[in-house]
């Protein structure tokens, strides 16, 4: 294989020499076009990244779908509550232990029912919270210097374009998930308050909330990177350093979702702790379910 490739390249060298300066010029034309196309693509994509860092999709298009899901879940709750109520009314059919469990079920279901019906506004509020945090941290990152540095090396520019493309794909995926999330959020709450599906519901809610806060974490990540670069920039003005730093920054942005899910888990732990403290003071049915679910 190596021999074939060598021969192919050697024959190309010969042809290239025969073509002479016209061939060189033609190649230069193609090369320049490719170069400019990549730079345009990269500039456009960097603008897209910045736009996506400060934009969230409006939730109104998903309202009807959310409403349908809410109706279905509410209906299920009505069946659960009616069933439990009937069982409680005909108390002779159940034992004291089961009666206590049913009472907790009903309590949990009512809280869950309220949360499911509020889930649209709640979800919207979480997004607003994410935007508020982002707004507090956002500082427009001037990226043109990195672009100019990267443009000095075609290979690096192609690589950089690839990485930026992946970042954009990730951010687009996030936006889609944010929009779809409003429909799945009530399902997550519903599953969370059902003891058998509690873990699955928790996972769903964590993923959806983490997905929303990816934006904020990206803003933080960019801010830290730019501040760090600003601190070093005085001594590192070299083009290669800037290009590599830009590339590293994009790579860092790619890892943000992993951080987001990690931080969501920590956030979940904090909430868990907070709920534990609150419910120790005011016993709530949800706590009983949580403990039961754990057992």
């Amino acid at each position, binding site marked *: 294989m190596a021999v074939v490739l060598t021969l192919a390249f050697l024959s190309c060298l010969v042809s290239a020499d025969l073509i002479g300066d016209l061939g060189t010029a033609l190649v*230069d034309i193609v090369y320049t076009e490719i170069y400019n196309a990549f730079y345009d693509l990269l500039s456009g994509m960097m603008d897209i990244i910045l736009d996506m860092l400060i934009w969230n999709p409006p939730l109104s298009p998903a309202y009807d779908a959310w409403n349908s899901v809410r109706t279905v879940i509410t209906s299920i709750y009505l069946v659960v509550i009616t069933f439990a109520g009937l069982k409680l009314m005909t108390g002779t059919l159940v034992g004291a232990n089961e009666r206590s469990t049913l009472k907790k079920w009903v309590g949990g279901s009512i809280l869950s029912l309220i949360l499911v019906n509020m889930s649209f506004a709640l979800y919207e509020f979480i997004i607003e*919270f994410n935007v508020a945090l982002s707004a507090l941290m956002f500082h427009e990152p001037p990226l043109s210097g990195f672009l100019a540095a990267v443009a000095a090396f075609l290979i690096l520019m192609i690589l950089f374009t690839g990485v930026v493309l992946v970042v954009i794909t990730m951010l687009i995926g996030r936006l889609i998930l944010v929009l779809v999330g409003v429909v799945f959020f009530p399902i997550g709450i519903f599953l969370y308050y059902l003891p058998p599906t509690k873990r699955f519901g928790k996972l769903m809610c964590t993923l959806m909330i983490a997905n929303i806060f990816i934006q904020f974490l990206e803003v933080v990540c960019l801010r830290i990177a730019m501040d760090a670069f600003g601190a070093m920039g005085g001594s590192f003005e070299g083009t290669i350093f800037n290009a590599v730093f830009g590339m590293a920054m994009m790579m860092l942005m790619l890892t943000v979702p992993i951080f987001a899910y990690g931080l969501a888990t920590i956030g979940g732990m904090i909430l868990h702790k907070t709920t534990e403290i609150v419910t120790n003071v005011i016993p709530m049915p949800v706590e009983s379910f949580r403990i039961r679910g754990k057992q």
Partner: protein
Amino acid sequence: MRLKHLILLVLISQTANAFNYTNLPELNLTIETPPYEIVWDYNIDQSNAVDEVPLEVKPIDDMPFKNAWIKIMALEKTIHDTETNISVASREGRILVKYDYISTCPPSTYDWDRCRGRRYKLVGWNEELRIYANGEYEGNSKIESYSIPCTENTLELRAELYLEVECKRYSLEEYEINETEYCEEEYDGLRYYDGIIEDSVTYLTSDMYPEANLTFKAIAENPFEASKGILTVEAKAPYSKLEARIGGKSLTYSGNAYDIEAYLPNYNLLRISTYDLPHIIESNLFSRIYDIRDNTTGEINTTIEFILTYEETKNILSSKNCEITLTDLFQNEVTIENLCEGDWKQTKIETVTNGKIYANGDEIQIRAVLTHEVNPIADKQVLIYYAGDEFSGITDERGMVLLTFTAEYPYNRIDVIFPGEDHYLSSSRTLLIATTGSRLNAIILRILPPLLILLVSIFGIQYMLRFAGVVK
């Protein structure tokens, strides 16, 4: 051959093969210098080798010429501009003229029956070729040098062939001998006849009269940023090469390649013509270049948009070394220097808002301060774009503009722009705010971040205390 050439050549050839595109045209274009000498020598040889009337020439039969023609066959330095269909020539060069004729005397008018008429006999002739360039006599050779002053914009070449013939004239004379009439030819002396045939061609001279202007759109003031600039070059005639030197960076560009085409079919002479092939000959300046051609006037406007890193910008602004060299189609160079002498001032916008979190309908107050370095810039218009609306204000003596508008949910992006004016370059700033649908949400959102920080802190402290074993 550079690696990029090799790689792309492989790609191009493979693509061509994949599409079975094997009938590639003959690559007889030249890129750098038009091959004037080769074409000229060929044309001389070819002109001598063929001995026919050129196809497009109509021979003249007019005393003292018969079957006469004269033709300016070729010029040493001329290019046919295929875009404008105009030929341009250099102010100095050589001209190749070819002619042929049969010298003749007036025809015989003898009428022996009536014994009238005359007859002529050619005894000698004298020819003189005269070459004129813009009316000035240049010489009398078939290959003649010419030159015209720099002040003249057109070149009119005229080749004249003057011919004088010497003819003996005879007349028929009657005389009587013994009442018998006789008719006899008598020598009537020498007669001289002359005439001129000519050919002329007109060319435009390749006067570029270039004008260049370099301006920056943005100047990088730290390594985060890049400088953007535009170099425009206007030339009245096409150039063969444009070399731009901006600091240590340079770019060499050509809008044309040169083709060789045949003309005058039975002689198959050659001429050089331009071939529209914009290409960068050499460059280490990151730029985009394009030119616009006015095919009626031949004017060509070239724009080079370039991008520089912070480091490069610093070098250029300190050295102020920016110049262009334009080479015309005949390798004459014109250089324009000191293009970086402009007093550009990169502006900066700093903004402060009366908050970050707004409820729908809240008042957003934004204070933008326009400065250059630390100096405020007064009396300049600053634009603000928010929720599809444009707001504007004029900076006061502190460089400050204060604008107030209403928050609209869910719009959260504010763009503050100074579009640039005079030598002050444009600058902009994008702000992110949070807008909420209700006032309650806004209040909660204002409380939540510090609360979150508090919770995280408590959790962290608790965790650390546990880790240290202070509490269980």
